[in-house]
């Protein structure tokens, strides 16, 4: 029986696998794609740590900035832990060989790492590797996992967790290659399955797969989710393709301007404020919005933001060195997720831990700071691995029976037999648009209620959706249907939390209630299914 089963092979999964293994655990990492395909590769701007390589900085300032941006909804102890661990986390990444951008300052080790300005930060705090920070961290972590002979099961899709008396016993998976349903028994499980941003299909920077598979499985297994209404919209995605243009473009000095060539917001405010300002320009003032980086010059752009220059040329036919970049805000990061305690253990499921975007460790609160997500996956990944191992030491060796396996086999068999009279691909687009329009940057109760009604109707119709491709192996029609079903399962938790929160706070902005109301709402909305 495996000690620690890690589900998800992005940065959070790989870090927790390395940590569990070095604690002494036997580890298996299971992912629905290959490890380096993860969303982590898309993190561009940087990873925060108060190294003070550029200007004076201190952990307390990092804590202060994070708390300020969280708008009262973070757990200050968790923030303290994450920010306090940040310099050591960078030391660790440095020791693995992450190729950070460097300074010419005659220093050694991490003190040569270049740091840049991000929105909401009081100083230049984000360590970076050009605009490929997440990619380079992810690949270095993967190579380190291979060095440490960590076992991987790729292309294996999570169906359900197995629990017994409120304790996790493993999970059931669909082997995408063979179509076989498998039970994997484990003493501890770490969920590192990513966020649910792709529910905003066609209105998100996220990868297709960020549909909240792990969060949905935790709900089904009796665990709790919280703060689901807090979804960060990134201010600058390319207008036509939704592709992310990093906040570092503004951190390095880029301006936001409207069609009248006017600046309308301090570009370095936190993302919620900048996203709202852009949204208002687009929809209330009927203005186009552009990111202007021309004044930075070709040399600096190619040095600091080479990926952005390429993406603009390819997807928008715009050369940022000479032209304005048309942008719009789209869904980017989900602050809410699996509710965890100080040990990152899931509320409601013992022995099950959650880390990264899938979890709500209450460090981002109502609005995440740029550069804190890569920090969370690495700093807390270590913690999750250690704690999962500690749980495994005393966990029962007795394997779960096949109840869940048989249920899931029947479930999949049923999908193959089900007649698909409603096209879920079409509904996926409808759901994405519905969320952007009615559960988006500016919310109001009538729209939220309409959205909830539509989502309930979609859920009722799910029985008539299904797959037309009945091929038993490598069936991506089936995987996409399961992903859509998971997103749809989370949809009402997001909307009903948004309805309940009659105030505006961070990324959740309600037109009827534009003020923050601490008396009534300085609290987390937690959702758990009871039998």
């Amino acid at each position, binding site marked *: 029986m495996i000690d620690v089963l890690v589900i998800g092979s992005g940065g959070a999964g790989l870090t927790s696998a390395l940590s569990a293994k070095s604690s002494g655990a036997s580890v298996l990492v299971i992912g629905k794609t290959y490890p380096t395909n993860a969303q982590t590769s898309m993190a561009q701007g940087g990873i925060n740590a108060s190294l003070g390589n550029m200007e004076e900085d201190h952990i307390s300032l990092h804590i202060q900035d994070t708390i300020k941006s969280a708008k009262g909804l973070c757990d200050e102890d968790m923030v303290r832990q994450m920010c306090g661990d940040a310099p050591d986390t960078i030391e660790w990444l440095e020791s693995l060989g992450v*190729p*950070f951008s*460097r300074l010419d300052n005659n220093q*050694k080790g991490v003190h040569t790492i270049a740091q840049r300005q991000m929105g909401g930060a009081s100083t230049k705090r984000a360590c970076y590797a050009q605009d490929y920070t997440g990619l380079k961290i992810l690949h270095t972590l993967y190579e380190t996992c291979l060095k440490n002979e960590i076992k991987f099961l790729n292309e294996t899709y999570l169906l359900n967790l197995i629990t017994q008396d409120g304790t996790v016993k493993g999970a059931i998976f669909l082997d995408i290659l063979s179509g076989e349903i498998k039970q994997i028994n484990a003493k501890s499980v770490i969920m590192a399955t990513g966020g649910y941003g792709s529910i905003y299909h066609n209105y998100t920077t996220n990868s*297709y*797969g960020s549909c909240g598979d792990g969060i949905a499985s935790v709900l089904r297994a009796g665990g709790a989710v919280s703060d689901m209404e807090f979804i960060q919209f990134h201010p600058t995605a390319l207008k036509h393709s939704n592709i992310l243009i990093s906040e570092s473009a503004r951190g390095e000095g880029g301006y936001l301007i409207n069609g009248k060539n006017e600046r309308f917001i301090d570009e370095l405010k936190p993302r919620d404020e900048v996203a709202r300002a852009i949204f208002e320009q687009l929809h209330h003032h009927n203005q186009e919005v552009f990111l202007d980086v021309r004044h930075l010059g070709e040399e600096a752009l190619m040095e600091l933001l080479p990926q952005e220059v390429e993406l603009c040329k*390819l997807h928008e036919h715009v050369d940022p060195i000479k032209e304005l970049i048309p942008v719009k805000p789209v869904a980017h990061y989900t602050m809410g997720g699996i509710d965890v305690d100080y040990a990152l253990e899931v509320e409601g499921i013992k022995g099950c831990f959650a880390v990264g975007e899938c979890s709500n460790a209450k460090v981002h609160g109502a609005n995440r700071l740029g550069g804190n997500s890569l920090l969370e996956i690495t700093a807390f990944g270590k913690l999750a691995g250690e704690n999962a191992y500690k749980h495994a030491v005393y966990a029962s060796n007795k394997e779960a029976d096949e109840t869940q396996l048989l249920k899931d086999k029947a479930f999949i068999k049923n999908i193959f037999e089900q007649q698909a009279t409603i096209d879920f691909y079409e509904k996926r687009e409808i759901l994405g648009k519905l969320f952007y329009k009615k559960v988006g940057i500016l919310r109001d109760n009538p729209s939220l209620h309409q959205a909830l009604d539509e989502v309930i109707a979609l859920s009722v119709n799910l029985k008539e959706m299904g797959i037309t491709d009945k091929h038993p*192996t490598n069936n991506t*029609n089936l995987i996409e249907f399961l992903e859509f079903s998971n997103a749809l399962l989370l949809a009402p938790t997001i909307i009903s939390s948004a309805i309940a929160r009659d105030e505006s706070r961070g990324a959740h902005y309600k037109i009827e209630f534009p003020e923050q109301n601490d008396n009534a709402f300085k609290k987390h909305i937690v959702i758990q299914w009871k039998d």
Partner: protein
Amino acid sequence: MEIFILRSETQSYNAYTIENKETTLLNALTQIKSKQDNSLTFSAGCRSSVCGTCAMRINGREVLACAYKVQNNDKIEPLNYHPILRDLKVDKTKSLSTISKTNAWLHQFQEASHTHQDEKLTEKQSDCILCSACYSACPVYAVNPDFLGPFSLTKAYRYSVDKRERETKKVIDAIQVNGVWDCTLCGECTSVCPKGIDSKMDITLLRGTSVQLGYDDPSFATQNFGTPDFGFDPNAGF
């Protein structure tokens, strides 16, 4: 416009008609799958050239589907030298296993004093997204399926020049068999890399380091086999 996709079940090209406007191949494939044929199988992720999932071949050339603008009459096929799972979806287990065989990681860390110039030494190489385009384009695999291949050798190069690596020789030791000397320096890897990485150059540089560390080109040694021994080894260090 019309495009042709190689389907694994029938081993033939299926024609698909798509809207006549500029779009990425990935958008076209997603549209076909969701609106015309749910059974069309391919892999994709980020849509922005960084997750490495959607490499395939268009008219015989490796591209990322998300970064390629589809053209009328394009012929779309899966990557070469990878077992085809279904349609355009391939099994990357074997190609990824070359990373372990190459030991492409930091062997022994030492603290170093880095400069901006040092960053530049590995900046391009570490842009690798493991899409496997170079592996598919590499003609060596037609004759040697055990070749470590362009992306793993580029990764080896990245660690070999990293000042933090205390055991550079270990990096070099691991790339002698089925490694740097098996490359034909044809440059196909370099020409197809969507991130502009020059694996051919990295391999050439690794050969130089190998020679400095006392290794020699085995084919060169073979050519000289049987010639009289003059007591002078041209590959020996001084």
